């Protein structure tokens, strides 16, 4: 069988890790050649040649769709590109919008539709929570300090102040909320979401929907410890019936296609839906490690192959991150800087 050429973004395995390396690690060992797509020459994935066969710099989404499309076509021509797996939130609008054009060029994807992508936005969380049989924290979308103050008064302190794509801060006072509002607006722009801060255990489910309402694979975990940036450092697999049933309902009602991560806060039997990310998280290899290889399922779905529903995973499997170093020749850095590929 011929190799399948897959490009994966988000290969920045830093203290704020992107999902690309977990995806690449899950795909490795299959008949797959992996191109790592990086935005910066210092992204660690470029130097992880045991996972990434070849790396390419790609333009930031702000450079425009034409520049990125051109780069993808270059990669297709010079390395090979059958499937692209975008893993970063900011990239998804491009890949969803130009899915047909990519397909026309022989580059396949497995992504939610534009409507599905909008549906899971933080602004519409309450509706999707209700459909899935979950609770949603009270929230308001604000675009000014006045609206923020009004929202905080209505929701009650403490609150979470969030950007629509990135960043979330816990504010205990109105002053704190205002400071975080300013910080988010300065970095990510409007609008900002103010959300009731609910208490409980942070539990997440990741999975892949096949676009026909089926959920061939999912894994639920509890984060045992997180870094200062809120990234998982240790975790454990769990079997929470309410959470898993809600996941099933979410995929069935939205007919979700592609990867997703449901972030929830669980207080005994009450499950609050906090966020739905339309992509894998950086810890996606945890699922692979417990026998549910979600990136392979995604790849098969992108290729139009049938995906069997995975068996059950075991609760009580641990995930432990660690740091590592590597030493390599300067030439690889030189290549990526001067040629844009390595």
């Amino acid at each position, binding site marked *: 069988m011929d190799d399948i050429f897959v490009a994966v973004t988000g290969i920045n395995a830093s203290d704020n890790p992107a999902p690309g390396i977990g995806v690449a690690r899950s795909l490795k060992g299959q008949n797959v050649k992996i191109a790592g797509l990086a935005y910066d020459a210092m992204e660690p994935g470029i130097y992880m040649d045991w996972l990434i066969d070849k790396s390419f710099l790609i333009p930031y989404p702000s450079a425009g769709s034409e520049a990125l499309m051109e780069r993808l076509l270059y990669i297709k021509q010079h390395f090979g590109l059958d499937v692209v797996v975008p893993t970063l939130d900011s990239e998804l609008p491009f890949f969803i919008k130009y899915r047909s054009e990519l397909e026309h060029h022989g580059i396949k994807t497995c992504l939610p539709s534009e409507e599905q992508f909008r549906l899971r936005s933080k602004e519409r969380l309450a509706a999707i929570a209700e459909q899935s049989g979950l609770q949603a924290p009270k929230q308001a979308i604000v675009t000014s300090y006045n609206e923020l103050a009004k929202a905080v008064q209505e929701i009650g302190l403490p609150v979470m102040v969030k950007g629509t794509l990135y960043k979330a801060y816990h504010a205990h006072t109105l002053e704190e909320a205002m400071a975080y509002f300013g910080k988010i607006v300065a970095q990510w722009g409007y609008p900002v979401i103010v959300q009731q801060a609910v208490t409980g*255990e942070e539990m997440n489910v990741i999975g892949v929907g096949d676009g026909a309402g089926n959920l061939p694979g999912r894994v639920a975990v509890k984060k045992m410890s997180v870094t200062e940036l809120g990234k998982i450092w240790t975790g454990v*697999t*769990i*079997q*929470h*019936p*309410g959470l898993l049933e809600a996941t099933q309902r979410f995929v069935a009602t939205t007919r979700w296609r592609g990867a997703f991560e449901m972030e929830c806060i669980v207080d*005994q*039997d009450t499950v609050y839906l906090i966020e739905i990310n339309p992509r894998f998280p950086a810890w996606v290899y945890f699922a692979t490690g417990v026998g549910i290889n979600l990136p392979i399922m995604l790849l098969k779905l992108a290729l139009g192959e049938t995906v069997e529903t995975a068996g059950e995973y075991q*609760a009580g499997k641990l995930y432990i991150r660690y740091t590592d170093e590597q030493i390599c020749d300067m030439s690889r850095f030189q290549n990526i800087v001067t040629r844009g590929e390595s």
Partner: protein
Amino acid sequence: MTNNRIARLAVNEEGFVFDPQTGESFTVNDTGKTILKALIESKAQEGIAIKLTEQFNVSHQEAQADVRDFIQHLRAYQLL
């Protein structure tokens, strides 16, 4: 659902307890392990106290108090 939670707990021989629904884990001593395993098997409180009396060389009254106390703890953690 809360009432069934104790039945789902995994208890090993060293007294390590894992709740697969919440991911919580904790440890119990030999007395706690005996009580917990008996509760998982749906044994009655009086029967558990008798078992403790036989196994740990304590008075029946003391064993009854231990069982009550342990059950209170489980309730506090909403496992019962």
